[in-house]
């Protein structure tokens, strides 16, 4: 691992994010003889799905990872290794933002800030779990499903002992299996979507038989282990003194409004919750790329053309950042964006590129059809907005409760930026990554305005809090 970022004598393509999208973009460029740099804030390449363990173990990957994922991850990382002459990977390197006029990004690595110029920029920053506030959600013991999963996948540590899983989507089933395999007691999975919505989409899900089969495999495994999966159920709230001890769940109606007269209380020390993902667009926003809103696909995402070019010159976006479609799509999009760059360089023409990408695009169509099979089941519904009560903290960084937001709305505030100025919600260290989605959706509901009118919180430089010392070190 390199201790210091070495700025190349002439700018090369820079890829942000070493997940399936970013790595495949780099490999595709390398196959055509083009050198590139990947920067990623994680300690090792792999992204969210192929997160490598921080512990050296003989299996290589966490024992909870199934063989298929192990093979995919190994293949991807071996490929990356094969091109190590062409691809320089900087891990623990966090991008703080970019200067689009200067074609450069600012990277924090080893407490030192470096400006890195690019000839092309590939933004492959993936996504994060969307948070939906409910009473008690800030108590220790409540985590995102993926966040908890990263503990058993990458850190090989159990984040709790008796866990309830609530939320929506196929990740819940996979996580239930992995938590069980990690030695945690899984009380049950509470999927907000209705079973009928899943059955109705079977034609779409048949677009990818192996993936459908994976889902069936997880379900039958859970059944065998006696872990129940409840459809049309979800979270109401969490209680506990210093940590989680009681979790309340209830049946959800079709708008995901909990039916409180049928609620049940479960004693458990942990709650894993995931009602969808948000594209990690802080960089595409900060760099000035145009965005549009997609309710089912991670909220605002950068507009991209068929070669994954954004509206900004030299900037491409691929993978979950450009719409949440999962890791298989991310792999394909990473490759397509690299071909797009080859076209822009004049190294191949449009026709050749189309030919090279024909089978990739066919694949993409099938994978996207499959993913749309979950749209009905998993698209977040308005009922979730009714979960928090007056005293529920919405913005964790600035400790802003729902009643402060309600008061602001009562004064006539109708967009998230004004809401931020009035309440400080979204002004803290995470820059609104946690509360931004709720604030937008809640405002839209309460004021009956559109998402475009409500707008989004501006991403600001630096994207993460940084010490003066780090900037000073970079000046030397």
């Amino acid at each position, binding site marked *: 691992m390199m201790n210091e970022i070495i700025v190349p004598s002439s700018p090369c393509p820079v890829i942000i994010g070493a997940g399936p999208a970013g790595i495949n973009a780099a490999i595709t460029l390398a196959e055509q003889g083009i050198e590139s740099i990947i920067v990623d*804030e994680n*300690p090792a390449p792999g992204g969210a799905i192929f997160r490598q363990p*921080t*512990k*050296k*173990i*003989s299996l290589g990957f*966490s*024992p909870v990872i199934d063989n298929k994922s192990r093979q995919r991850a190994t293949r991807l990382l071996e490929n990356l290794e094969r091109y190590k002459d062409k691809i320089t990977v900087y891990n*623990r390197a*966090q991008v703080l933002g970019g200067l689009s006029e200067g074609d450069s990004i600012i990277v924090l690595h080893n407490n030192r800030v470096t400006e890195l110029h690019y000839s092309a920029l590939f933004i492959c920053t993936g996504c*994060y779990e969307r*948070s939906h506030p409910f009473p008690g959600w*800030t*108590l*220790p*013991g*409540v*985590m*995102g499903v*993926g*966040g*908890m999963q*990263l*503990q*058993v996948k*990458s*850190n*090989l*540590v*159990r*984040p*709790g002992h008796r866990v309830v899983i609530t939320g929506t989507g196929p990740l819940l089933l996979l996580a239930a299996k992995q938590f069980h395999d*990690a*030695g945690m007691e899984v009380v049950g999975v509470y999927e907000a979507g209705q079973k009928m919505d899943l059955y109705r989409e079977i034609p779409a899900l048949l677009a990818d038989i192996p993936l459908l089969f994976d889902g069936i495999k997880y379900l039958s495994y859970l059944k065998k282990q006696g872990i129940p999966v409840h459809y049309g159920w979800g979270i109401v709230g969490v209680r506990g003194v*210093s*940590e989680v001890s009681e979790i309340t769940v209830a049946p959800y109606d079709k708008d995901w409004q909990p039916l409180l007269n049928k609620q049940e209380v479960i004693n458990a020390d942990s709650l894993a919750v995931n009602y969808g993902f948000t594209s*990690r667009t802080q960089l595409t926003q900060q760099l000035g790329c145009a965005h549009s809103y997609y309710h089912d696909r991670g909220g605002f995402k950068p507009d991209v053309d068929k070669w994954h070019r954004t509206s900004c010159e030299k900037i491409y976006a691929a993978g979950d950042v450009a719409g949440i479609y999962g890791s298989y799509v991310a792999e394909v999009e990473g490759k397509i964006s690299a071909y797009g760059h080859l076209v822009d360089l004049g190294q191949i023409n449009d026709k050749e590129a189309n030919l090279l990408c024909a089978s990739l695009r066919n694949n993409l169509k099938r994978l996207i059809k499959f993913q749309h099979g979950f749209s009905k089941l998993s698209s977040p519904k308005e009922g979730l907005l009714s979960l928090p009560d007056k005293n529920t903290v919405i913005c*964790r*960084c*600035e*400790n802003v409760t729902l009643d402060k937001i309600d008061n602001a709305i009562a004064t006539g505030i109708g967009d998230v*930026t004004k809401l931020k*100025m009035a309440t400080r919600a979204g002004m*803290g*260290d*995470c*820059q609104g*990554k*946690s509360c931004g989605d709720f604030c937008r959706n809640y405002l839209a509901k309460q004021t009956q305005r559109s998402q475009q009118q409500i707008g989004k919180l*501006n991403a*600001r*430089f*630096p*994207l993460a*809090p*940084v*010490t003066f*010392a780090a*900037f000073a070190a970079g000046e030397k």
Partner: protein
Amino acid sequence: MLNKNEFQTQKKSINTITLRENDMLYEGEIGNRKIVIMINDEAVYAYQGESVLSTLLSHKIRGFSQNDHGKVQGPYCGMGVCYCCMVKINGINKQRACQHSIEDDMRIDTRSNHFTTLIPAFEKE
């Protein structure tokens, strides 16, 4: 905060492994070097290279991140996004536990996390 000498004395005084009951694997299965670090002025075992968050979780410490409002909360995203896992590492406040790796002689404090010497984000509006 302990000074360096106090740290060394405490470090020498540990000879039994503090039980890490949340570890998924046995000690023998883990190839990382086992080292002694300080959590809240107490010496404990950790594996070099694991995330600070997992060390805390493995020692059953789940409530930390005293944010600017002095409120204790738990880690949420586990991947560097939410800033709900901030602790003081080697004297520097507001470090995300989930994004830092354990190193020799590390001192972690989950009790304080004040806003110091950090560059605030520039407001565009």
